[in-house]
């Protein structure tokens, strides 16, 4: 675990540096949207790592409820916290991209709606822990929120889709058609995704280590009094 953490940091640092060069110097500017389209290489990987994090939360929460081993809770919590950060950045970069291209910061299409609600659910996930009377109950409650949230996601997506068909005028189609990506663009996107997954894994291991230390400290404090 410790070695993985030490190895991941320089790897993530190098990859982020290369990624930035690819995005801002190497990849050609998209013809229609112009320079602002480059945010796409950050936005998509951020959103994908956000979703990966939330699946980790749900999976680890389910294992925690069945096995009751706190290490699974640590994983769920750390993934939840890093995931909320990733998803927040994904929503912000998405809005920055949408404003010049679509003319609005936000549209209520199925993807955006689902992303937004997922984000709110996991903010609630972190809130439950903060308000729980004891750590142990907080863990179990948060796990329940994580699992119910994950089960709910497909239904939220379907609901948002159905809603869109009810109000078709509100939809402004996504301007980027991903199938027509140039090979340089596709390569940059792919590399950026890898970079963010490595970055996410590194942040996750750091958060896990910190969480372990926090819990060890709390246990020591409890032993004193």
């Amino acid at each position, binding site marked *: 675990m410790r070695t993985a953490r030490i190895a991941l940091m320089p790897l993530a640092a190098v990859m982020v540096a290369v990624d930035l060069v690819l995005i801002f110097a190497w990849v050609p500017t998209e013809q229609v949207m112009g320079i602002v389209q480059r945010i796409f290489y950050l936005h998509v990987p951020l959103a994908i790592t956000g979703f990966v994090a939330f699946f980790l939360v749900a999976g680890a929460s389910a294992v925690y409820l069945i096995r009751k081993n706190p290490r699974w809770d640590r994983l769920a919590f750390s993934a939840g916290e890093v995931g909320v950060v990733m998803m927040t950045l994904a929503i912000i970069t998405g809005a920055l991209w949408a404003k010049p291209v679509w003319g609005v910061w936000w549209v209520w299409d199925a993807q955006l709606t689902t992303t937004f609600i997922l984000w709110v659910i996991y903010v609630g996930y972190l809130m439950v822990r903060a308000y729980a*009377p*004891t*750590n*142990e109950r907080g863990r179990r409650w948060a796990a329940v929120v994580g699992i119910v949230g994950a089960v709910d996601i497909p239904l939220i997506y379907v609901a948002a889709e159905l809603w869109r068909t009810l109000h078709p005028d509100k939809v402004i189609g996504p301007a980027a058609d991903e199938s027509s990506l140039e090979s340089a663009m596709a390569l940059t996107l792919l590399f950026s995704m890898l970079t963010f997954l490595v970055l996410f894994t590194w942040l996750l291991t750091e958060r896990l280590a910190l969480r372990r230390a926090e819990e060890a400290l*709390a246990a020591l404090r*409890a032993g004193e*009094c």
Partner: protein
Amino acid sequence: MRTSAAPSPALPAEALSLEGVRKRYGATAALTGVDLRLGWGTVLGLFGHNGAGKSTLLRVLATLVRPDAGTALVAGLDPTRQASAVRAAIGYVGHAPLLYDDLTPTENLAFAASLFRLFDTPARIAGLLEEVGASAYAHRRVRTLSNGMAKRVALARALLHRPALLLLDEPETGLDADGLRLLDRLIAAVAAGGGAVVLSTHDLERGLRVADEALVLRRGAVALTAPTGTLDVTSLEAAVSGEGS
């Protein structure tokens, strides 16, 4: 109790058998490794200051609190894995009377009976309310009852399903002299019928008189276990406050 003559640990013949039971609430340790044995037909007095862990221990036995570590057998059953069976075997009276204010004592007991799937309940309920001296209040809302009367009804509620093990958490609260005599009678009856009673109390003198065995908790750990016959109020007081052991 831990005695040298105790048989092998997990005998269902024992009312209670606990080993290394721990419970922590966040940063506070409520129980730090409690060992305990109790045979049938005995009354255990549980002594200790506020916050010593008496209530937590009783709540562990009542399956209301899941211990973090250690093994516990209540009437030969594991309260975490066989919780339902344990709940059927115990009667618990906590600090709150566990009665619905807007229902009458009879309705409250009928509800408890339906939770425990009892048959022939109207006669049993009337009989129990008579026994605890609450017959006159059987059809008034609990809201209008005094604390002492509510406590009597709570005792009737706990005895409704004829539990083998009675768990009482400071049951004296609110009871008058007559109520205390009733409490002693009920405790003695359970023990005489081959059951067992665990009673937490701050009244050392009464506790020594009612209980056969004494267990003193201090900061979540067992400070003393002894038959009550070998103790007096002074020595028990010293054990509770932790002066000279």
